[in-house]
């Protein structure tokens, strides 16, 4: 029994269809774990169950000794689990800085009426949030773009901003859903470097879904493979690459090889 993070026999059914079956995993603090599998294998469904966007049909999500199964997403985030989305979901009409500042909102202490009356105690908090948000952007090399509209950034920068925004929510566990999707090899390499950097600097735990095999194999210390909702393999990158079932289900497809 580990009391950092554990998924215990998660099952998700939609009508008669089983999207994920008996998914279990234990993640230790500071680990970098990958989740791979063909399209429609149920990977994002696992993330949605962890973050409260879906309530599992059965099974438990245990986080720091607590059962958080079925908690609403915002409460899960406040507990220290943040995520990014496969299809980028920025607040496109807000500035880069504002996007990051949204993630600080759950840390705000002063009540809404203090904000409405513009009391000094609230203003101080607003100043603190802005300062910290700018520091985050600097760290991810987005500082010079702070006042741009998020929707006007080039694709690679938008991916970066998604990660910055998730980090700003102060997670202990960061879930990345296909962070390298749509990136060119150069950008993918930089991303891998960035993920390792923030993990080391912030002593984060990272759980990520990715299609790019080179990215996952190079970055993750441990990998889990899903196919049709069922876990078919688990192990180190080298073990996974040699696993016959994985080769059959996934790596056998030439476009992913």
């Amino acid at each position: 029994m580990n009391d950092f993070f554990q998924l215990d026999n998660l099952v998700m059914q939609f009508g008669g269809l089983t999207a994920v079956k008996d998914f279990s995993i234990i993640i230790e603090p500071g680990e970098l774990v990958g989740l791979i599998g063909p399209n429609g294998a149920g990977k994002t469904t696992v993330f949605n169950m962890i973050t409260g966007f879906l309530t599992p049909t059965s099974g438990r999500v245990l986080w720091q000794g607590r059962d958080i199964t079925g908690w609403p997403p915002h409460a899960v985030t406040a507990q220290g689990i943040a995520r990014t989305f496969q299809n980028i979901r920025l607040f496109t009409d807000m500035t880069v800085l504002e996007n990051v500042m949204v993630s600080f909102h759950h840390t705000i202490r002063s009540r809404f009426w203090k904000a409405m009356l513009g009391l000094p105690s609230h203003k101080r908090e607003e100043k603190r949030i802005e300062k910290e948000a700018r520091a985050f952007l600097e760290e991810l090399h987005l500082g010079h773009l702070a006042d741009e509209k998020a929707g006007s950034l080039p694709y690679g920068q938008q991916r970066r901003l998604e990660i910055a925004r998730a980090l700003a929510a102060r997670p202990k566990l960061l879930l990345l859903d296909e962070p390298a999707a749509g990136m060119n090899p150069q950008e993918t390499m930089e991303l891998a470097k960035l993920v390792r950097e923030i993990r080391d600097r912030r002593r984060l735990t990272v759980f990520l879904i990715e299609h790019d095999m080179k990215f996952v194999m190079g970055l993750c210390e441990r990998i889990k493979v899903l196919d049709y909702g069922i876990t078919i393999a688990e192990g180190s990158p080298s073990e996974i690459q040699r696993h016959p079932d994985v080769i059959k289900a996934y790596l056998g497809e030439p476009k992913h090889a």
Partner: protein
Amino acid sequence: MDTSTRNALCTILLLAVLAAVLYVFQKHGTEYQIRILNNMAIFITLAVSYNLVNGFCGILHLGPNAFITIGAYTSALLTMSPAEKQLSFIIEPLIWPLSVIQVPFAVSLIAGGIAATFFAFLISFPVFRVRGDYLAIVTLGFGEVVRVLCNAMQSLTNGPLGLKGLTPYTTLWWSWGVAVFTVVVITKLVNSSYGRAMKAIREDETAAKAMGVDPFKHLLLAFLVSAFFSGVAGGLLAHLITTISPTLFTFFLTFNLLIIIVVGGLGSTSGAVIAAALFAWGGEALRVVESPMNLGFITIPGIPGMRMVLFSIILMVVILFARRGIMGRSELSWDRLFTALRLQTKA
């Protein structure tokens, strides 16, 4: 002089000018001018608070008329003297303790706001379980239910007869005082972290949740604040026109507010202010199309309903061809004004 001192001075100057203008009109203005100015202020209050929900949170709430009605009735019932109430309620007497209470106008306005907020809270649970078109219909339905209740609950509202002969307490100072307060408070709210959370919900509710924003809490906040100011404005309206009845604040009123915030730009407080002022003035000016016109040699008969046709067409044209309205989502500010002036002088 740093910019924040400059901006504060400019704001004070603007308020002083407004006060001077109001003073002049209160003293020397015609009844017609004063009515338009009062309407302007009340429409500004209503539009800015309606825009908080529809423009900044991005949901389509169609029931502000319900909160205006509740505010108007509450406030009116509280300022009428017990004797007046006894005279008015001829079919069924007004229930105790409302029948004996009489409070000052200011207290009645706040009570109107609180009553509206209370009802907003009651319906918030079914309302925010749904989104989009469903939410629109539920809030619209609430407006209808309030109208039905106003007609039916005679011992509370005097039924279809309504309340007549209210004291015209609403002066320019009251209406504009409330308008300025509303604009200031709502501007501070939308520029705060709470406002950012609301905008995040508007942009992408799923992402907002993932960033730790509780949509229900923030939509509720916007909804309640909006209902409060709508209720206060309802009290002002009641004591401006001095007669209220269940058919006074129908979906027509909501439709007018919708036009104002769409034309002003959904999600812009300054846009809502500009459009509300234009609407209050234009609505009166356009009365000419509905009254007969004598051109000397021929009299063109007035066309009743023409104003609403024009308003509907304006709404359609804006939504189809100029969706951003006057201001889009941007705001007027001293900084922008001075930047623009500087560019002007340079050029």
